[in-house]
């Protein structure tokens, strides 16, 4: 009980960024207290823990907050170094893992959001961009089991939560991700065979419901 209270995660159920942290913690077998946040009515605790961005996820370890999902994942990897590593040991492989995880950060969520927020020509442009992004990712994956090779690692953790959003993106923008990036979809299925992933990712139907809720909130038809 005491050990569990030492680690808290301020999070939001459907957040792919929060899910990265949950997957990393699960991979390392770390117990923690999950604290669901109301993002429309942010708690004092959240605002105090992340005064700069006021966002989830925030990991608190012994009361000390760490923010930004990929930074938290690296932190987890470093602290629980006795468990199989998420980042490879070899410097070039590490740099490569950081590069692609960062690419995911810069590109995937923003472009995915455009797919449900925009209409007509703007949506078509976003679809084109989305496919380009995933073709780059598919190029990096190649025929490997995971992005890091045989072992599930940093890039996989960074990207896999978005697999639960594929159905929502496809339905809103009317296209098939499997058609354009079959290797990515196959990789997503392989990741789902891992308990850390299958127990963490949101149900694609629930993600779609959430996107519909957001569309209504933003007045998107």
């Amino acid at each position, binding site marked *: 009980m005491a050990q569990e209270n030492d680690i808290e995660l301020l999070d939001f159920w459907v957040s792919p960024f929060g899910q990265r942290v949950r997957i990393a913690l699960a991979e390392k077998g770390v117990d923690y207290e999950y604290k669901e946040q109301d993002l429309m009515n942010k708690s004092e605790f959240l605002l105090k823990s992340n005064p*700069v961005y006021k966002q989830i996820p925030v990991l608190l*370890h012994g009361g*000390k907050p*760490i*923010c*930004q999902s990929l*930074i*938290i994942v*690296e*932190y987890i990897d*470093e*602290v629980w170094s006795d468990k199989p590593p998420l980042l490879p040991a070899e*410097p*070039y492989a*590490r*740099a490569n893992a*950081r*590069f692609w995880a*960062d*690419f995911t950060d810069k590109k995937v969520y923003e472009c995915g959001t455009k797919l449900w927020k925009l209409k007509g020509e703007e949506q078509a442009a976003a679809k084109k961009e989305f496919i380009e992004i995933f073709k*780059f990712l598919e190029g990096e994956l190649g025929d490997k089991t995971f992005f890091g090779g045989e072992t599930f690692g940093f890039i996989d953790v960074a990207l896999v939560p978005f697999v639960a959003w594929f159905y929502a993106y496809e339905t809103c923008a009317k296209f098939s991700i499997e058609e354009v990036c079959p290797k990515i979809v196959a990789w997503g299925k392989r990741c789902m065979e891992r308990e850390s992933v299958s127990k963490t990712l949101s149900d694609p139907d629930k993600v779609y419901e959430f996107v519909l809720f957001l569309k209504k909130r933003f007045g998107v038809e």
Partner: protein
Amino acid sequence: MAEEVKLIGLSMSMFVIRVKIALNLKGVKYENLEETFGSKSEVLLKSNPIYKKIPVLIHNGKTICESMIIVQYVDDVWSGAGPSIVPSDPFDAAMARFWSYYIDDKWFPAYGEVMKGQTREAKIEAAKEAIAKLQPLEEVFQKQSKGKDFFGGDTIGYLDIALGCYLGWIKAAEKLTGLEFFDKSETPLLAAWAECFYSNDAVKCIMPDVDEFVEFAIKIQAKLNA
């Protein structure tokens, strides 16, 4: 086997300056491949097909992109040489990474508004915003430095490089606005740190003169207005 280290960049780029500082800290000899401002070489486009941006480090034929990723790579490869750049304590490392992210994500766009400002007044207003966004780093410095000269302690570290690379550009903004970015009464620790950093051996040999930054700023503004 001889190490082949090349750096594709522009001497005025703060992101390139980051990599040069890291390489200097580790005593690594490298070939500087200077790009021409306004155009991108074949080498650059081939080495960084995703972003087509500098800096790109080429180490024995392998390419590494994104400035702070390159800095960490340099720290990893030449771990035996010079000081450690990334803090060894995981929490300190996370703090250094977070504030480095903040600098690029929140502070740099605010600074950018100074350069974009069409009039001196507009530049001054933007500078006030940028100065305000530096404020949180005073406390960060106090916590991270543990009474020493740098965010990294005794030696230049990750967060020093992330922020310090902007010093030449900050001095240019100070010249253009007449404002001080590191006020000695408001942010005394940062003011002292800036002087320490700027005069450090690993930095001063590669940091262009302030007037070069001012001239370049005027050139960029002309391009933006064209």
